[in-house]
């Protein structure tokens, strides 16, 4: 009662006083100083200082996103010429609920680290005066804006700077605890009331995670004061949050810090991860723009896939077969087209489903992942080899021109068209066409239906040219009449297939070493034997035929079994015959810390686009010279076999497959330049010039 009266009296006094005096007449609530981690400045070498605030008990200052009210500290610098001050590296804030309103801020003492980069041409001997006008809001139940001029003076010395005994430890500890970029990709979905954040983080122990809280960087998408419900699954964790007041905030990526508290044997451990969650579709259909553009890109990517060296022969064979059916009725043609499209779509569904399923199970995999399996590479080589033999005329299945090619693509009837679609997809998987990467990178972070829709669009793109040819018979008029030339073309088309086989064998040699290589080459001989026997004994009868068929079957079985008998996984050498040294995140970080520009080439031996780029562009004299001139260090990240560190690197750039080319500038603060997937010398040289 008395307290209430005193408060009322005080309120009246404040009211009276405030009509003619500024609100801030008393001692400041926050004592603010500028302190340094080091005791001197070395020319050109970045160093850390910090704004140190001692806040009066019961009062608080604010984080970069102050929450529902309040204002973060701002600094207006006056620095000596050539000096650059980064933004404050914000440590993790506290949650400060006031009634229905949530603030994010600091109480007690807070250290706000700031990185300063001095010019390289700084003359040793003088003093460096760093000054700033700091202004902030400090609140208890009432708020007071405060400001101060802060300064720090350090000598410029040529030698290595020593640590400041009072502050080095505390600033370094604060820096060590700063939120770090999340190694796991994140996405979110939104309904009118709820935003659900999902982080793909396999292997988190469900019973060990005590708590998680997401601090968004910006006001708008999330209700700061709402409860956040955590759910941990084998695939990662999800956080259900009340949606914030800004309606269109959920159409853009949501950035912020996710704090996960984990119970370790040594006690609770807190991880602060910087996330950039991409929007996904939901029942409310919020992220339609992203979804639509991913579908469009996937369709385009599928179309371009038809021109890739691994797909072109298969498609050509189908087109030749279509021409051979020039007398077929439009309905028959259309059914062939539909069967082919069904084969493509089904195969894409299976590949996409497997990819999504395995990722949900926590596997760090991406597009073309099955080519990381030596068994699959071997089988693919056999199939393509058999097809090539068919085109060369060693073996004929069926008869006449309808039997263009061999193996799956030559099966007559609709089943043949269907299988050709499956085959086209299988041989397409090692290729990444332009436009595809963005779509696939989006797909793998989405819920299964969305991801499968993107894969479907990709398949549709791949199937479309052939389907259109079957739908519009008029177009066939522009194709020359069938004749002898078709046989010649057919034989010619065998060679891209032989080349693809050679490439697959080479990939295999990278994966399994000499023994696996030998087994596969032996297998190819057996496949050739089987093909020849099959053809040679086509019209044989009786016991001869039975013997021939048995040997044929045994040869195929032996070819398949042979690589399995070879000892598994010999040490794997580098994939791409790369120029650069091996990529590790630590190496990249070290080079960047030294201010060295870095080119990162994420590649795999089974990625044709990668190899073409490497041979044609990256190893060209002009580009080699350009790298040398700019002092760029070339790191190669080999994804031929699975490597979780590289998968994370890809995920960080929203990619799920190779190639990925990154050019990191000298300054650690500036982001990497993402180069396109089809490189030209001009593109690389231009980006080097912009360094």
């Amino acid at each position, binding site marked *: 009662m008395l307290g209430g009266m005193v408060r009322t009296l005080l309120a*009246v006094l404040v009211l009276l006083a*405030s009509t003619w005096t500024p609100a801030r007449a008393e001692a400041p609530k926050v004592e603010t100083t500028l302190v340094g981690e080091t005791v001197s400045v070395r020319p050109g070498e970045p160093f850390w200082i910090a704004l140190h605030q001692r806040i009066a008990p019961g009062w608080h200052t604010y984080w970069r996103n102050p929450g529902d*009210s309040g*204002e973060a500290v701002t600094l207006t610098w006056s620095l000596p010429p050539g000096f650059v001050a980064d933004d404050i590296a914000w440590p993790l804030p506290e949650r400060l609920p006031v009634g*229905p*309103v949530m*603030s994010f801020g600091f109480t007690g003492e807070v250290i706000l680290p700031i990185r300063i980069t001095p010019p390289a041409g700084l003359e040793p001997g003088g003093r460096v005066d760093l000054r700033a006008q700091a202004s902030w809001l400090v609140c208890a139940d009432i708020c007071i804006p405060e400001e101060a001029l802060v300064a720090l003076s350090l000598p410029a010395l040529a030698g290595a700077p020593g640590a400041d005994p009072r502050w080095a430890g505390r600033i370094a500890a604060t820096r060590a605890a700063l939120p770090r970029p999340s190694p796991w990709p994140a996405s979110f979905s939104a309904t009118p009331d709820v935003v659900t954040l999902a982080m793909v983080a396999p292997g988190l122990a469900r019973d060990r995670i005590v708590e998680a809280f997401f601090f968004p960087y910006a006001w708008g998408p999330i209700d700061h004061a709402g409860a956040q419900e955590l759910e941990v699954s084998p695939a990662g964790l999800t956080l259900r949050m*009340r949606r914030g007041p800004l309606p269109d905030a959920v159409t853009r990526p949501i950035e912020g810090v996710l704090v996960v508290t984990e119970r370790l044997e040594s006690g609770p451990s807190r991880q602060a991860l910087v996330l950039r969650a991409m929007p996904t579709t939901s029942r409310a259909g919020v992220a339609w723009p992203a979804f639509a553009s991913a579908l469009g890109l996937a369709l385009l990517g599928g179309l371009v896939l038809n021109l890739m060296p691994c797909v072109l022969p298969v498609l050509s064979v189908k087109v030749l077969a279509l021409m051979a059916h020039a007398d077929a009725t439009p309905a028959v043609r259309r059914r062939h087209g539909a069967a082919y499209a069904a084969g493509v779509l089904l195969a894409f569904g299976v590949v996409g489903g497997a990819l999504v399923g395995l990722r949900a199970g926590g596997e760090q995999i991406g597009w073309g992942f099955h080519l990381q399996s030596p068994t699959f590479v071997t089988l693919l080589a056999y199939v393509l080899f058999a097809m090539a033999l068919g085109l060369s005329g060693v073996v004929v299945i069926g008869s006449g021109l309808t039997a263009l090619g061999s193996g799956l693509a030559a099966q007559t009837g609709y089943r043949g068209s269907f299988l050709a679609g499956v085959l086209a997809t299988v041989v397409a998987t090692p290729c990444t066409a332009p436009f595809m990467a963005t779509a696939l990178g989006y797909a793998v972070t989405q819920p299964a239906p969305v991801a499968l829709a993107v894969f479907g669009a990709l398949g549709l793109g791949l199937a479309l040219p052939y389907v259109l040819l079957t739908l519009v018979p008029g177009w066939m008029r522009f194709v020359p009449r069938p004749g002898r030339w078709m046989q010649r073309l057919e034989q010619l088309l065998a060679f891209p297939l032989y080349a693809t086989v050679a490439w697959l064998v080479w990939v295999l040699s990278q994966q399994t070493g000499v023994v696996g290589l030998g087994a596969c080459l032996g297998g190819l001989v057996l496949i050739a034997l089987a093909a020849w026997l099959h053809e040679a004994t086509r019209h044989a009868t009786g016991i001869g035929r039975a013997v021939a068929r048995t040997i044929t079957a045994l040869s195929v079985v032996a070819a398949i079994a042979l690589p399995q008998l070879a000892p598994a996984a010999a040490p794997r050498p580098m994939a791409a015959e790369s120029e650069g040294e091996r990529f590790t995140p630590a190496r990249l970080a070290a080079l960047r810390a030294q201010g060295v520009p870095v080119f990162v080439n994420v590649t795999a031996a089974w990625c044709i686009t990668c190899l073409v780029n490497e041979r044609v562009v990256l190893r060209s004299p002009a580009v080699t010279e350009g790298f040398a001139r700019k002092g760029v260090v070339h790191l190669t990240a080999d994804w031929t076999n699975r490597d979780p560190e590289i998968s994370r690197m890809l995920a960080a750039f929203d990619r799920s497959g190779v190639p990925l080319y990154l050019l990191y500038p000298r300054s650690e603060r500036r982001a990497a330049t993402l180069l396109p997937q089809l490189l030209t010398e001009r593109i690389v040289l231009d980006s080097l010039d912009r360094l």
Partner: protein
Amino acid sequence: MIDRRHLLIGAAAFTGVAIVAPRSAAASSAKVGAPAPPFTLASASGPGVTLGDLRGKLVVLEWTNHDCPYVRKHYDTQNMQALQKEATGQGIVWLTIISSAPGTQGHVTAAQANELSKTRNAVPTAVLFDPTGVVGKAYGATNTPHMYVITKDGLLVYAGAIDDKPTTRKNDVQGAQNYVRAALAAVASGQPVKEPVTRAYGCTIKYA
């Protein structure tokens, strides 16, 4: 057409107690584009004000706390008063609402409120008291100042800051983009409000 609800609201107005018609259970705060939560509040000049009675008029709500440095920025520079004058001159109803609980910063009596209006040359249509904070919470008001615009049909079309300079610096009033003025102009010309929701900035409302 006087039904039970109107009687209830009338009674509430008489006793100076706020009544907010219950909204759908899920919605914790007013949504822009939806009907503004109805209320009846006691005013500094005497009679209570019922939002429902103001149909046919554009309404501006201004949550305030005269001691908040952010509110002072806009009153000391005459920025808020100029906007009030401009709006009321066009027949717009301007309601200044105080949700500070008794004993907290910004809570005033009717006499003090009238005195503040006089000394500061403030010209709102009325200053309303929401000491229980029920109306403030229904609108999701978090800051002082926190601004809302309600159309003649009772739809909420703007919620958020007064302008785009979230500071206490008086110099920042010059050159700031005033969201409320923009919203009122848009409504007057039949256009949709370009930025219907912005981040309100200021002091936390001192709710009970």
